[in-house]
């Protein structure tokens, strides 16, 4: 497995994500946002958490228009795997690769704590090592994680088994308690919680490990 982790100015979880991929057996390339090409043979693109471009204008909006994001979009369009975590989810929503948008938390506060997530589907490369209904503990750290989409889109996501995770106790006002969603082909995952921060015993939790481990072996380059 060859993973490309995109680095924007203001990304701060890029190295954590790289370590999580490496621990799962991947070769990792860090790719700068001004690059216009992904490395050859990339199986999965990781968009990390952080505050790309200082969250100016809207979270993820400027990153979504950076040169490398055209490539990320093309990679996803041809059926490639991609995971966006926290700010990376915001970037994927801004590019239109995933539907909806992330609004300011309903309580207006930045929230940094470990939360419970319900695993809603195991029918994806990311979630196949979890069981449906299992509750996993994963940290969140965001100010704008309040998932919003129109009712029709929410119904479609639910109807097509594209909700990956929901919060057991909604911390941010997200519609349908949604914490993470999948693309129509289930190959792109966007989620606000940070599985890479629960991927080593030293983190205080390892519930995120299964997500990265599941990826090794199932991925094919696009």
């Amino acid at each position: 497995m060859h993973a490309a982790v995109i680095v924007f100015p203001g990304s701060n979880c890029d190295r954590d994500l790289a370590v999580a991929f490496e621990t799962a057996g991947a070769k990792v390339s860090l790719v700068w946002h001004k690059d216009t090409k992904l490395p050859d043979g990339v199986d999965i693109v990781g968009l990390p958490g952080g505050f790309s471009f200082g969250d100016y204008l809207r979270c993820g909006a400027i990153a979504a228009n950076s040169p490398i994001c055209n490539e990320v979009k093309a990679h996803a369009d041809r059926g490639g795997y991609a995971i966006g975590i926290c700010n990376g989810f915001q970037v994927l929503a801004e590019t239109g690769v995933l539907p909806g948008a992330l609004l300011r938390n309903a309580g207006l506060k930045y929230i940094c704590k470990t939360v419970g997530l319900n695993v809603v589907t195991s029918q994806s490369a990311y979630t196949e090592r979890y069981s449906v209904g299992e509750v996993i503990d994963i940290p969140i750290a965001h100010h704008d994680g309040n998932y919003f989409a129109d009712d029709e889109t929410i119904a479609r996501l639910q109807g097509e088994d594209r909700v990956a995770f929901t919060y057991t106790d909604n911390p941010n006002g997200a519609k349908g308690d949604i914490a993470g969603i999948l693309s129509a082909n289930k190959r792109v995952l966007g989620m606000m919680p940070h599985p890479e921060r629960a991927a080593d015993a030293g983190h205080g939790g390892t519930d995120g490990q299964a997500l990265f481990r599941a990826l090794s072996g199932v991925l094919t380059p696009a």
Partner: protein
Amino acid sequence: MKARVHVMLKNGVLDPQGEAVRHALGAMGFDGVNGARQGKVVELDLANGTTEAAVNEMCEKLLANTVIESYTVEMS
């Protein structure tokens, strides 16, 4: 020439910041504020001849996220 772009959350999209402003005004004793919506204004300094259509395209591609926001453009 200049353009002034107003970006607002669409009706029906929760605006927690506007709601906090409304709540604060009420707490300060300003009665009768039934609602507050908070948006943003972007002023663009443009080369002469830039069309409103070009500014609309800027809004669609970057300045507004039309999933959640609407925008208006004033050219001057």
